[in-house]
C-alpha cells in the first residue's frame, strides 16, 4: 500500500484553502488530496494550535502527487506566509460506523456503499443484522415496532482517500453514524 502524506501547514486557512483548491483545479489534482478537517479526520485543534504556535491546516495527499503539492505550498510560502510545519506519512485510515434503519430503501443504499468499497478499503468486524417481523406490519399507535430493521456496525479501514470517499458516501445516507477518521501514521 503506498503511503499518503499529511502536510501540516501554518498560516491563515482563509488563504491556504482557496490557494490549494485553485492549485488542484488548475492542475487536475482535485482527487489527489483532501483537507483533513473537511474530510472528517480527527484533529485536536487546540493541541495543534499550541504545538505549532498558531493556526494550522492539515492536507492529506496521495503518494504520487506528494512532491508536486509540497512544491506548490513552498512556492506560495513567501507571498502568503505559509509554512510546512510537519510532513508525515500515513499508512492507512479508519473510522467506526453504525446504522439502524427500518427503511428498505435506505438499507439498499447502505448495502450499495458497503458492497462496492473502493480499492484497498474493507469493512472490518462488519456483521449486518436484517430482521423481518411480519407481526409488526402496518401502522401502530401504541406499540410501534417496525416490520423490517437493518442494522449493523463495523470499521471502514484501508486506503486513505478510499476511506474518505466511503465516509462521505455513508454520511450522505440517513440513519448512519460515522465516527471521525483516525490515521495510522508510518513509524
Amino acid at each position, binding site marked *: 500500500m503506498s503511503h499518503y502524506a499529511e502536510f501540516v501547514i501554518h498560516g491563515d486557512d482563509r488563504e491556504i484553502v482557496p490557494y490549494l483548491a485553485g492549485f488542484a483545479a488548475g492542475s487536475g489534482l482535485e482527487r489527489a488530496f483532501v483537507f483533513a478537517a473537511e474530510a472528517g479526520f480527527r484533529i485536536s485543534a487546540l493541541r495543534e494550535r499550541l504545538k505549532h504556535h498558531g493556526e494550522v491546516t492539515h492536507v492529506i495527499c496521495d503518494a504520487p502527487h506528494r512532491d508536486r503539492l509540497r512544491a506548490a505550498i513552498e512556492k506560495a510560502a513567501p507571498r502568503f506566509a505559509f509554512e510546512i510545519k510537519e510532513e508525515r506519512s500515513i499508512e492507512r485510515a479508519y473510522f467506526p460506523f453504525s446504522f439502524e434503519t427500518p427503511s428498505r430503501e435506505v438499507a439498499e443504499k447502505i448495502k450499495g456503499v458497503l458492497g462496492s468499497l473502493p480499492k484497498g478499503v474493507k469493512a472490518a468486524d462488519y456483521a449486518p443484522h436484517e430482521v423481518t417481523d411480519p407481526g409488526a406490519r402496518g*401502522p401502530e399507535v*401504541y406499540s410501534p415496532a417496525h416490520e423490517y430493521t437493518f442494522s449493523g456496525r463495523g470499521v471502514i479501514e484501508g486506503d486513505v482517500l478510499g476511506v474518505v470517499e466511503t465516509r462521505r458516501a455513508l454520511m450522505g445516507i440517513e440513519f448512519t453514524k460515522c465516527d471521525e477518521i483516525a490515521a495510522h501514521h508510518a513509524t
Partner: protein
Amino acid sequence: MTAAVEHSLGATLAVWWTLPFAGILLSIALFPLFAPRWWHHHYPKVALAWALVLAIPFVFEHRGEAAHEIAHVLLADYVPFIILLWALYTVSSGILLTGTLKGAPGQNVLILASGTLLASWIGTTGASMVLIRPLLRAISWRKHRAHTVVFFIFLVSNIGGALTPLGDPPLFLGFLHHVPFFWTLRLAPAMLFLAVPLLTLFYFLDRRYYRREEAKRHGTDEIMGIRGWHNFLYLAGIVGAVLLSGVWRIGEVHVLGVDLKIEGLVRDALLVVLGVLSLKTTSASVHRANQFSWGPIREVAILFAGIFVTIIPALAILKAGEHGALRQLIALADSPRSYFWLTGGLSSFLDNAPTYLTFFNAALGDLLPNVPEAAAVPQLIAMHHHYLHAISCGAVFMGANTYIGNAPNFMVKSIAEEAGIEMPGFFGYLFKYSLPILIPLFLLATFVFFA
C-alpha cells in the same frame, strides 16, 4: 357512577389503589421507548396484568360495589369510546389522497393546515393516517424532512383535534360525561393562537431549507385527487350520530345493573353500521394503499380496557375531593392556569385521555363536591368554564410535547422512519422542537387564556 357510591368509595380508598393506573400508563409510556419489540408482542399481557392487579383485590375488598364500578366503566365509558374510535379509524382509512405535490413550503403549509382542520372531524389519528403519506411523498426528494414531520405531529396529530369531541379521545370522554358536543368549539381561539404561529414558523423554516435544496429537485408533479370520497358521507353520519346522542333523550335501560342511555346505544349502533358500510363500499386498493390493518384499533381496544379498569379508584378518590386520598393533588390544582399545566404536563408523558378524565374529576371534586356528575358538569360549564377550558386545552395541545404524549405521534414517527426519514430521538424531539417552540407558545397561551 352514582354520587353515593362515588362518595363512599372515593373517601375510603387509599392512594395505593391508584398504583395499577400509574403502572399501566407508565408501561404505555416507557416500554415503546426502551423495549419496543418486546412491548409489541406482549402489551396485551401487560394490560391484562395491570387490570387484574387492580380488579382482583378491588372486588375482593369491595365486593358488589367494585363489580358494579367495573361493569359501569366498561359499559358506559369503554364500549362507546372504542366504538367511536373504531368507526372514525375505519371510515378515515377509506379516504386516500392520490398524486404528489412538489414539496414546496407553501404546499406543505397547505397540507399541515388542512390536516389541522380535518383532525377535529376525523380524529387526530384519522387525519394523521390520511395525510402523512401524501406529505411524505411530496417531500421525498427533500434533504431536510424531519422538521416537516415534527410540525405535522404538532398540528395534525395533536393541536388540530381540539374543536369537537371527535377530534381527540379526551374530548369524547368529556362528551360521554355530559360536556355538550359544541362546547369544544370554544377551544377554537386557543387552537388558532397556537396553529397560526406554528404554521408561520414552519413556512419560514421550510422555505429556508427549500431554497438550498431546490436545485436538486427531480421528477414531475402529479395531479392531486381523492379516492373514497363517499367516506366523507359516513363521516358526516358519524358527526350526526354523536350529535344526536347529545340532544335526543329517550330513556335508560339497565344492563348488568348499569343504567345505559338508549340514545347512547342508538349512537353506538349507528356508528357500527357506518363503519361496516365503509368497509363494504370502499375499494380494497384504497385500504391497501393506506396500509390499512386492524393493528391500531386492536392496540387501543386492549390497552384502554386496562386503563378504564385501573382508573376506577383514581376517579373515585378525585371525585371525593378534599375527603379523598388525593386531596393534595386537588389542592395543587387551584386555578385554570394550574389545571392547564398539570393536565398538559402529565399529558406530555402519559396518555391524554385518562389524564383528561383524571383532572376533569379533580375539578368536579374540588369545585362541586358531592354533586352528581350529570348535574355537576353543566354547573362547571356555567360557573367555572375556564377550568374545563384549561383541562381540555392541556390534554389536547400538550400531547404534542413528546412522542409518547399522544397515540398518533409514534405512528407518524414510525411511518416517516419507514419512508427513510431519520426522525429525532425522544430527547432530540424534546430539546430541539418541543421546548424551544411549543413551550413558549403554551406559556403565552397561559397568559392570554388562563391567567
